[in-house]
């Protein structure tokens, strides 16, 4: 079924724009509902996935515009990065990367891991994390940044190298060395 096969991927796709899990989830739900509601009027010969993707893309950007979070430059740059990552071997890299992520997260100091997981797996906002853990927002930010620095250190070598082609040779040198 289309739903089972595509739902998670589409949530991830929307999240690349909206950056918020619950929002992305809502947008994808709505797109599936719209696909159903408009089943009579849309061309069935067309791939329904491309229909969903288009709807989700439009809605994600609308969400950014409505919330005054739309910046053409950033969105376009992110799209360039994403387009360059969709190569044949990205799935393989993905599997390896996942295992690395899990172990890198496990290595984080306890407090840092706690904050990072609340943000990334419980989808809590910084303010909610601060409230839940009874710490300040500043501490939440600092712990997030610490967690990311560690992940970058551990995952850097495993991140897809695909952007390099576009950026040219001279940048390769700096790519994983900062």
């Amino acid at each position, binding site marked *: 079924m289309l739903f089972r096969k595509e*739902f998670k991927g589409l949530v991830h796709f929307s999240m690349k724009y909206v950056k918020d899990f619950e929002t992305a989830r809502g947008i994808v*739900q709505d797109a599936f509902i719209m696909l159903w509601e408009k089943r009579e009027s849309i061309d*069935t010969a067309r791939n329904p996935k491309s229909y969903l993707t288009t709807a989700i893309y439009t809605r994600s950007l609308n969400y950014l515009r409505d919330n005054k979070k739309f910046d053409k430059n*950033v969105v376009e740059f992110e799209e360039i990065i994403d387009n360059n990552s969709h190569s044949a071997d990205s799935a393989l890299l993905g599997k390896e990367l996942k295992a690395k992520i899990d172990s890198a997260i496990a290595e984080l100091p*306890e407090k840092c891991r706690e904050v990072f997981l609340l943000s990334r797996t419980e*989808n809590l906002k910084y303010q909610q994390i601060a409230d839940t853990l009874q710490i300040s927002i500043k501490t939440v930010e600092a712990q997030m940044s610490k967690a990311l620095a560690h*992940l*970058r250190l551990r995952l850097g070598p495993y*991140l897809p190298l695909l952007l390099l082609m576009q950026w040219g040779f001279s940048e390769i040198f700096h790519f994983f060395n*900062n």
Partner: protein
Amino acid sequence: MNAENTYYELLMSRYFSGEASGDEISELSAWLDENLEHKEQFTEQKKIFDAVNEEMIEQQVDLDAEWEVIRGKISSSEEKGRKVSFAPKETKQNRNIIWRVAAAVTVLLAIGVLLRFVVFRPDSDIKVVASNDVMETRLPDGSQISLNQGSSITYPKEFAGNKREVELEGEAHFQVTHDASKPFIVSAGDLRVEVLGTSFYINTHAPGGKVQVILIEGSVAAYYKDSPEEKTIMKPGEQVEFSPQTKEIASTNQHEQYFMVWKTRSMKFENERLDRVIYTVSRAYNKKITLTNPAAGNCRLTVAFEGQTLESVLKVLESTLDLKVTQRGDEFLVDGKACE
């Protein structure tokens, strides 16, 4: 790493976590344009977030629950009495998907109709019961609700009229979509909690028959249904306990620390009394845990748990305070001596 770098690192984290404001995004955009090194840093950060998010979605999204939500919304916009049939098999082709969705929806619709007659009230309100686990649900206006296990929420298929009214039984966290023209009103027994758009928590089963309300952000007004003019206006971070019997209202600026523990299962105790720890753990895992010797409740301990299983939490308690934990049916018994 210099101060400017740290600043933009934080900004990027905020951006990728969806915390950045429009102004901050513009600032980030300008910084990106400055040079290639900035673009590289951004790319790296993005890839980490993408990978982590993908993994999170993989683990967190419950396809059956998502399908339920979509089905609920579709059936609410469908006319009654449509009938099709359902084939819940995985298939490789996408060509007939419209037909398949139609089929799926209609059988579910039929089940929905059945459920409505058997379970739901005849005025076709939707009742969501979190029977086996903590549940996330989305209301027709986009508001998000986390329901603790054993709690339920009832809401109309559509928020018609100029109010959004829902009924809560138990414990829930609300993230309400802002709509100034339609106040959002939660009925918790005789108590009414009215908001425009905000994040808050209600527990209708707080100890002592009280209704506990904690405001996380925004503003809410709470009142009893027979005296709507006597409103209690709450401020963020405030906790108010209402006693429906006596109409007593107790408010504090220091809200209970672990009110979301059933969702996060993250607990950190510092020199905390054992009875408080056991209370919190039992709330986190929704299991009855009894201290067979109440005097042992005065023992104190410092410990942190993060998403562990109940068994491992109890093992830690056992070894730290020399307790004995036994299971009797669904209940856990904790035995130990009182501390000096």
